[in-house]
């Protein structure tokens, strides 16, 4: 059975303040290319509460049509409410394919929605294209901890859905808004929402750790030697406006909280610049950060595997190198 339309949808996740998450805007870039190849309309789906900022951001980044579901029940993400709303929209409009950002929420929502619609879902994609032979989406994703890439097709079920890693695609240039905005009244009864957030705990030292959305990440590993060893890493991160990451070795040693962990049992990141300090580059760590545009490694061991993936490397002591690098950056920005 074919889909009702050839439209490509991008699900745009909203923040609690109603603004759009970066990844939703990023996905409009491949979405436009795919919609053109499939001959459909690039449609953004915005679900949330007080979503004007998100709708504006989407409208000025390439969406031709925007479906908006706004209501107090969507202010805080719940699997139940968002699944009901998104499935209702799909059933009404019948898109051929849908992109969802592979954030924690996106990876919570994607399988729930695709399973309810009996569709196919490909997780955590890092490349997207349309197969010229049949016009279906070719979803490419890493498996086996990044050791293997697989290209997946979903030839007979609709919509074809994929979650896509943040940071893989770049936002397009801002343009004048010309999107058609359609508001749908979909409301969910409180009794149908079976989870309730009782308490929100920010990271312990009040520091926001948005690794997935970060443009620059400075990470420390075993080579930093202890909790105090993160000081030069934090300094460099502060100078760059970067987020602090860590390898599993540093987290397991208790030097920094798990929220900072990059790698297979931590976060998967795709920043423009990743600076790995005192990180040897175990395959599990590489699995989490090899999607970075540019990788810089600082390590005393010239044989460390991190140098195999690094664009720039310093063979030397991070405690000597980082303060100098921080100083240079501060001076240039002063």
């Amino acid at each position, binding site marked *: 059975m074919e889909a009702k339309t050839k439209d490509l949808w991008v699900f745009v996740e909203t923040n609690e303040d109603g603004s759009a998450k970066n990844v939703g805007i990023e996905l409009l870039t491949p979405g436009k290319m795919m919609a053109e190849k499939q001959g459909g309309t690039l449609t953004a789906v915005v679900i949330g509460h007080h979503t004007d900022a998100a709708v504006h951001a989407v409208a000025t980044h390439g969406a031709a049509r925007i479906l908006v579901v706004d209501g107090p029940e969507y202010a805080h993400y719940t699997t139940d409410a968002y699944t009901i709303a998104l499935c209702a929209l799909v059933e009404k409009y019948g898109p051929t394919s849908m992109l969802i950002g592979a954030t924690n929420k996106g990876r*919570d929502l994607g399988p729930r929605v695709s399973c309810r619609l009996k569709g196919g879902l490909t997780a955590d994609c890092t490349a997207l294209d349309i197969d010229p032979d049949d016009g279906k989406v070719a979803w490419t994703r890493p*498996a086996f901890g990044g050791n293997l890439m697989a290209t997946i097709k979903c030839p007979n079920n609709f919509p074809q859905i994929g979650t896509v890693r943040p940071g893989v695609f770049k936002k397009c240039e801002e343009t004048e808004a010309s999107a058609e905005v359609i508001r749908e009244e979909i409301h969910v009864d409180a009794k149908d929402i079976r989870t309730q957030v009782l308490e929100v705990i920010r990271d312990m030292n009040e520091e926001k750790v948005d*690794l997935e959305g970060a443009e620059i990440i400075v990470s420390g590993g075993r080579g930093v030697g202890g909790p105090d060893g993160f000081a030069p890493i934090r300094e460099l991160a502060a100078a760059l406006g970067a987020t602090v990451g860590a390898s599993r070795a540093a987290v397991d040693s208790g030097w920094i909280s*798990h929220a900072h962990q990059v790698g297979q049992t931590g976060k998967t990141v795709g920043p423009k610049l990743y600076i790995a300090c005192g990180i040897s580059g175990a395959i599990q760590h590489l699995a989490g950060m090899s999607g970075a545009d540019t990788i810089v490694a600082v390590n005393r061991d010239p044989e460390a595997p991190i*140098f195999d993936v690094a664009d720039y490397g310093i*063979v030397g002591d991070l405690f000597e190198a980082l303060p100098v690098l921080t100083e240079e950056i501060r001076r240039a920005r002063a």
Partner: protein
Amino acid sequence: MNILVCVKQVPDTTEIRIDPVKNTLIREGVPSIVNPFDGYALEAAARIRDKHPDTRIVVVSMGPEQAKNALKECLAIAADQAYLVSGREFGGSDTLATSYILSETIREIERREGPFDAIFCGKQAIDGDTAQVGPEIAEHLDYPQVTYGLEAELDGETLQVKKETEDGAEIVAVRMPCLVTFTKPAWDPRFPTIKRKMAANRAQIPTLSPADLAGIDLTRCGLNGSPTKVKKTFVPQKKSGGVKLQEETAADSARKLYGLLSDAGLV
């Protein structure tokens, strides 16, 4: 409280090597382990039982006969009973088909063991990395779900789950029966005791075949029941030609690096 933990036997991805000639994964000699995230789910169940000793923990795995080794390990660590579900008809299942088979298996185990209050899963398996099977089982069973769980506590008719978020954590109350997927908590899972290990080695693990799953629709299983198809696999290209700096001092290297990054417009 009755808890079912879903586990998968996976190749230890840290041991996987690439055949440099054929450019394929070398799977021979790679040890099989219990998927680490499933180990965290089992530990979360064991911690509930530490506080509520009348808790019963059942583990289930879908896979070949050899996956019983993973189930025995779970019995040695914390589980009271294990089931394997296995069948040629299930081969080649994607996440939708796998979650359907597991949901039908859960119904069959419930006929034997009584209803479960909670299904615990790892957030994802380290070979496929999809994180889809847990939420899809929840959908098949029409249970509420909480993903990225760190720990769970029983609170009357609800479960209170501490879950990881992008900027910290949340405490979420979820009505039971429910499904929770677990990520890595701040602690390491417990080790098996010698006594439990010996008992696990002697344990009889029933194998459920498609014939044991009353009412299962085999057209929804295996390759034919899977909407997604793997079109090709390939080994990612390694980056090459990186610049390695090793000046007289690390400070000199850092100055040079700053120059390169600045020229490239990166800082």
